[in-house]
């Protein structure tokens, strides 16, 4: 049986060169490609996520790990049998209309990506129509809405109404977050969930999709 610990540790260290080297060794040893991804690369990333959650890793270190994991996945992916899935789901994320705050939303998207989700980041000042188009184009299962201002919170409600009016609300789970958001507000506007931070958002979508 192939020892994946070196590969996982290289992901944790964010060492892309070592990841590529060990992933290639696994391929040469005829290890199941899906196992290389799940038991080596994603297993390492799971450790990164857990360490980040307890403040044991910084965001840039997580990003380096994610880049190393992605490089490994890119190497192995062509060997997968058609239909084998390498992501846990697809998330469309953006800051709602009228709000230009970006970095908190980007952080949440990054953590989701690091946790194995495909993330489509639409940026800031995103209209309901743009969310609908992205959901359809990417067959997304989750929509994550962000805002930072008390005066743009109600755009989240408007966005959810647009999703319903255009017939995609039933196909997706909607989660929301941002400085002025509360669970009560989330309940009131018909969102499926709310998280206070990036790690919480990952836990939330994992729960919603399972």
């Amino acid at each position, binding site marked *: 049986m192939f020892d994946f610990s070196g590969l996982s540790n290289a992901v944790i260290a964010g060492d892309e060169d070592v990841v590529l080297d060990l992933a290639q060794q696994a391929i040469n040893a005829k290890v199941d490609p899906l196992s290389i991804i799940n038991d080596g690369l994603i297993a390492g990333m799971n450790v990164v996520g857990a360490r980040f959650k307890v403040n044991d890793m*910084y*965001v*840039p270190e997580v990003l380096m790990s994610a880049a190393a994991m992605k490089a490994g996945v890119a190497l192995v992916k062509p060997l997968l049998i058609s239909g084998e899935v390498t992501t846990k789901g697809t998330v469309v994320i953006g800051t709602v209309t009228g709000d230009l705050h970006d*970095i908190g939303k980007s952080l949440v998207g990054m953590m989701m990506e690091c946790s194995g989700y495909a993330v489509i980041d639409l*940026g*800031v*000042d995103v209209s309901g129509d743009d969310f609908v188009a992205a959901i359809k184009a990417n067959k997304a299962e989750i929509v994550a809405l962000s805002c930072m*201002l008390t*005066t743009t919170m109600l755009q989240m409600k408007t966005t959810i109404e647009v999703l319903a009016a255009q017939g995609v609300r039933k196909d997706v789970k909607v989660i929301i977050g941002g400085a002025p958001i509360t669970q009560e507000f989330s309940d009131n506007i018909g969102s499926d969930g709310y998280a206070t931070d990036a790690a919480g958002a990952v836990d939330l979508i994992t729960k919603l999709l399972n």
Partner: protein
Amino acid sequence: MTVKFTELAYTNVDEFVYGFAKKPVKCANGMVIGGGTVYPEINMTLPMMSITEETMPKVLAQYEEMIHGVCSMGVELKVPGMIVEIELLPPCTFNPQWGIDVTKVVKGVMKEYETKFGLKSLLRMTPVDVREGKALKHMYKGAEWDQVMDTMKGCAANGADFLAIESVGGKHLHDESVMNIDLPKAVFSLGIVGCRDMIILWDEIVKISAANNVIASGDTACGFANTSMVMGHKNFIPKVFAAIDRVMCAVRTMVAVECGAVGPDKDCGYEGVYLKAITGTPISMEGRVAACAHSSAVGNVSLALADCWSNESVENVRLLGNMAPTVSMEQLIYDCRQMNVATAKGLALQMRDILVESDNKYDPTAYIMTPSVVLKIAGEIIKGKTHFERTKIAAGATITELRAAVLSGFLELGPKEMKYLDIFEKQLKSIPADEAQFTADMIKANPKHDLRMYDIS
């Protein structure tokens, strides 16, 4: 543009204290900012509501309610003077007339309290720098630039005493530098892109201020070093990066003063202490009373050199005591009273040092706000002949001071933070001395950012 300030305004740390600035701002109503009295500066915002043409009457009613509450508290507690800051929300800059309407309502109530009760107050209007987003084509022409300038002009003509902005030139690059703790990119975004943007922006704001007989006050690194500070506070990035970033930001924020702004500098610019040290400009600061808006590790030290004392921002919601802006106003007034009584009793330096020492060993940003450290690093910054040079010097001097403070036991930093000081020092050394070469390198390394919108190519 060559830099203007080549000497420190302060050479004696015992003169470097809250309430007193070397270049106080004397206002028409008799208030003198930096003349010995610390004034409260209240900032407030709307509760959850949309801003549209239909809701504008309700928006204005909210502002009217808030300003009545804070002015009443000012009268009740016999404040010697107060500053009101309105940071306009994006729709009130995208639609300049709405920002003008807010200005008129707020100033109208302030005048009413002046007439009826003799309450001295000054209005700082801060339009939003809307020059970002997908639709932006150019930083200095087109809809966004016109909206910012039209709102500035309208606010100046309709009641503002001070004009300010939280400008965003270079922020898109800086956001990436923070996420990746990439010091060379931070130097580029602040010392080159940001400073060049500030020159163009502040030249215009100073002209508008002069034309309308209002005061061009200042800018802030809110979108820059405050992002790093919050990220560091949450342990998302090393706290030492936030401290280095803060001092680098001082060079960018100071461009407003080089262009003719006279203060008081904006509250959320914690780099204001460097501005005060170098230019003598009075500064507004925020700390423990700003916990209503955001957490920080500098709640007390930030008051040590403040000339105005702010709450950052609070939304108009009901608390047990009163509406939140009125509660914030009360807290600010009591803090200012305490500071001013300490001054009157000849205890200002002791008060300053108590505030400093209650925070400065626990966090690197708090440490680099220590008055003696500010003067030391500021003394290095002014040796630079360009903004680029000064930004690099700011980073290097901060690294040196933080390391020395840890070794001397004045600052508590874990080994991981210390490791990153070494990493950032190496990153800094990788930056070439030649600004043109560095600019060319950075443009090449960041192809997704089209800097032609800044006229940089």
